[in-house]
């Protein structure tokens, strides 16, 4: 079991710097997720931890062990790949046993360890099959068993579920979470799927352009995003511009669409132009106090209905309401949208920091 410590990591490909001065700490036994859009550097960072990418700067540690120049085969990591990377010419059992054989264990130990993990991953019945006879989900289980059986210090997973269909993805992520808990292994998990990240992570680092934008627990990231990028990347949100003023020492938000409300949370901030993030589910249609909106178009999604609305100043917003048998709002309907004030986030005008976090 290990803690992973990364100080000031730098990665360059030629003249392009992909990761600059990135530091983080993954606590022992934690499931830590690197989340971000493609090209954000999450896989690059993971491969630096694994040893498949060179490290141009900074220090990588597993506990006290400095691993920057350690050969990948010496790092004692378990890795699960996006395409599973099962050895096609070996049976399921041989695949899982491969790492143990490299460790020169005796036959009996290998057999018992392999059996244990085959059973744990519920693939014992397929032990003597070749991988091409397995479904994607089963192959992923083989990959996971193969990575875990060597009792690695660290488990690295690179978008392990992205090749599976939606239903299996949910099933497998539960399985991964459960096994990870059971084995208690420090895990770094890479994904671009925010829902997946929310579902399994102890902590998430949201990345963009090689920089960690927000590092925190899933709830913090959704409800108090560090900046506008995180607010709009995690879930969906409406960004409305406005101004922060003070009246008698009480902070007040004046949105450009004409709606104003008191926001005492920012009493200590100075007057400034701001961006306000309001998630679609945080509107309260039909309230007396709120912003005037006209429904333009709606999409019925079963559980919810999405409404596309225009505010008085022409800003377009999205709102989500629980569906009913009869549509509550026809296109063209005008209403007043109240706002769940305690759930909104107020950012500086450039979007770089969240004023609502105290």
């Amino acid at each position, binding site marked *: 079991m290990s803690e992973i410590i990364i100080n000031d990591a730098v990665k360059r490909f030629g003249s392009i710097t992909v990761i600059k001065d990135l530091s983080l700490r993954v606590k022992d036994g934690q499931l830590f997720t690197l989340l971000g859009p493609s090209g954000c550097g999450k896989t690059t960072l993971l491969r630096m931890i694994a040893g498949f990418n060179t490290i141009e700067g900074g220090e990588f540690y597993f506990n006290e062990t400095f691993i920057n120049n350690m050969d990948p*085969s010496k790092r004692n990591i378990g890795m699960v790949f996006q395409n599973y990377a099962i050895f096609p*010419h070996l049976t399921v059992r041989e695949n899982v046993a491969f790492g143990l054989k490299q460790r020169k264990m005796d036959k009996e130990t290998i057999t018992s360890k392999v059996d244990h993990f085959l059973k744990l991953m519920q693939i014992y019945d397929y032990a003597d099959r070749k991988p091409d006879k397995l479904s994607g989900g089963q192959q992923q289980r083989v990959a996971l068993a*193969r990575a875990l059986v060597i009792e690695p210090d660290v488990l690295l997973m690179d978008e392990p579920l992205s090749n599976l269909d939606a239903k299996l993805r949910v099933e497998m992520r539960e399985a991964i979470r459960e096994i990870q808990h059971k084995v208690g292994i420090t895990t770094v998990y890479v994904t671009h799927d925010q829902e997946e990240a929310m579902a399994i992570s102890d902590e998430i680092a949201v990345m963009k352009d090689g920089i960690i934008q927000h590092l925190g627990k899933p709830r913090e990231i959704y409800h108090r995003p560090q900046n506008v990028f995180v607010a709009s990347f995690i879930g969906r949100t409406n960004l409305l511009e406005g101004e922060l003023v003070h009246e008698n020492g009480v902070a007040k938000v004046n949105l450009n669409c004409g709606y104003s409300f008191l926001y005492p949370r920012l009493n200590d901030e100075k007057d400034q132009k701001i961006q306000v993030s309001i998630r679609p589910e945080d509107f309260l249609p039909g309230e007396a106090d709120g912003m005037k909106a006209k429904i333009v178009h709606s999409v019925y999604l079963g559980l919810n209905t999405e409404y596309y609305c225009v505010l008085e100043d022409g800003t377009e917003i999205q709102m989500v309401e629980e569906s009913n048998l009869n549509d509550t709002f026809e296109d063209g309907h005008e209403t007043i949208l109240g706002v769940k004030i305690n759930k909104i986030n107020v950012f500086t005008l450039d979007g770089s920091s969240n004023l609502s976090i105290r």
Partner: protein
Amino acid sequence: MFDLWDAQTILVVLLYVVFLIYPIANLLKLALFTESGFTLEYFQKFFSQSYYSATLKNSFVVSTLGTVFALIIGTLIAYFFTMYSIAGKKTLRIFIILASMSAPFIGAYSWILLLGRNGVITNFFADLGIQTPEIYGVFGIVLVFTLQLYPLIFLMVGGSMKKIDMSLLEAAENMGVTGFKRFYKVILPLVVPTLLSSSLLVFMRALADFGTPMLIGEGYRTFPVLIFNEFVGEVGGSAGFASAISIIAVIITTIIFLIQKYIANRKAITMHTLRPIEIQKPKGVLKVVMHLFIYFVVLVSILPQVYIMYTSFKNTSGMVFVEGYSLDSYRRAFSGMSDIIWNTIRIPFVALILTVAVGVIIAYLTVRRSNVSTGSIDIVSMIPYIIPGTVMGIAFLMAFNNGIADSGILAIGGTTTIMVIALVIRRLPYSIRSSVNALQQIPMSTEEAAYSLGSSKLNTFIRITIPMMLPGIIAGAILSWITMISELSTAILLYTVRTQTMTIAIYTQVIRGNYGVAGALSTILTLLTVLSLLILNKVGRTEDITM
């Protein structure tokens, strides 16, 4: 960090410097320098006398005609095979492949027996008062080239047509483009890159072939024939001139290669096949014409082999066939030439092992460890592809007869070693290609998975990479094997009595007029080829054949 693969890189570079760059550079020196210093005398001699320079034109004429006919026939058959069900398709396919696998000059000598001055067909038609066309010269060479080379086009273009997605054809049909119009409006444009690369391959083979024009060309002399004659000719001191002609040959093939590459790059297409073409049942006239065409072509292309087998059982008296059948020719072949048969197994076998091993290593270096030095290895390794076999033979002989730079080091002239190395260097480009193809289909992450599980680089290469590449390697190896046992143009210059192989023996027996023994040896060679192809069919799929 210096590792195993860096060491391999150095070894490979050394291999190419000694056995490719040095011989070619040496050839250049011989062509440009005499004892009195730098001279262009040899080049002037070549271009000023039409006796020499006409061979250039001749080579171009027969190679171009051979390529065009092979292209038409090969593409048509590939189209029919891709689109329609044909009676006996699998057998036809084997026969077509077989037709391309024998040494071309064997075809040439068989056609002489069939259509030559005293040929069976010639005599048959002469009795009916019909005169058959003159086989010697352009007609004979082009005939042999076409029959020898259309299978290569068929295989490559067929492979490419298979990758066309059915929905493209359906989309064309939807817009009213059907039948033959669809063939040249949709299918042909999609395989243009393959048409180009296969034409190049075929053209290069035709241009470099030495045995065919030598036997059937008579007065019609091509480039490789001239090089050979000038080199082994009775008049001494022609090595320099032969070198100069060789250099001209290499320059020409290089230019053709580069032009093809330029065009191919501009026409490159990537296709994603979700749904392969569904084979249709042909109807009516098309069905009849198609079958007649394919069966006629296949029949004509295996006729030479079959006829030689037939002659091998005929009684001979001196140089002529006489009444009756026996195994005399085989008896004579085995009694005097068992060494030769052994050589034909021994030399290519050692060469094959080396070719496969070096080919896999180079493929790994260029695909997985791509950097400047492996990039240059990749380019250099392709050079033998454009060097005619005769030229390679001369270059090797001049480079190593008295050792490197006449120092006595590596004086391997006349040994088995020089024969083996020549085969290795010549076949490597193909071996590398097939290994590269096999390697590119293995995702990098499979090897990374092995590393992460604690496997060293060498262990991963042996336990994971090689086993995954194996089907591709084996298919490539068997093809290399077949090519090597029928190789003539380099061996003819490098062999000695001790290292003579069957192709050389067949060639010399044919020249001497001992058609019976030549027939027996050819039959043994053909059987060896058929056997190899059958093995290939078992372990791999002939669909995987790439040239």
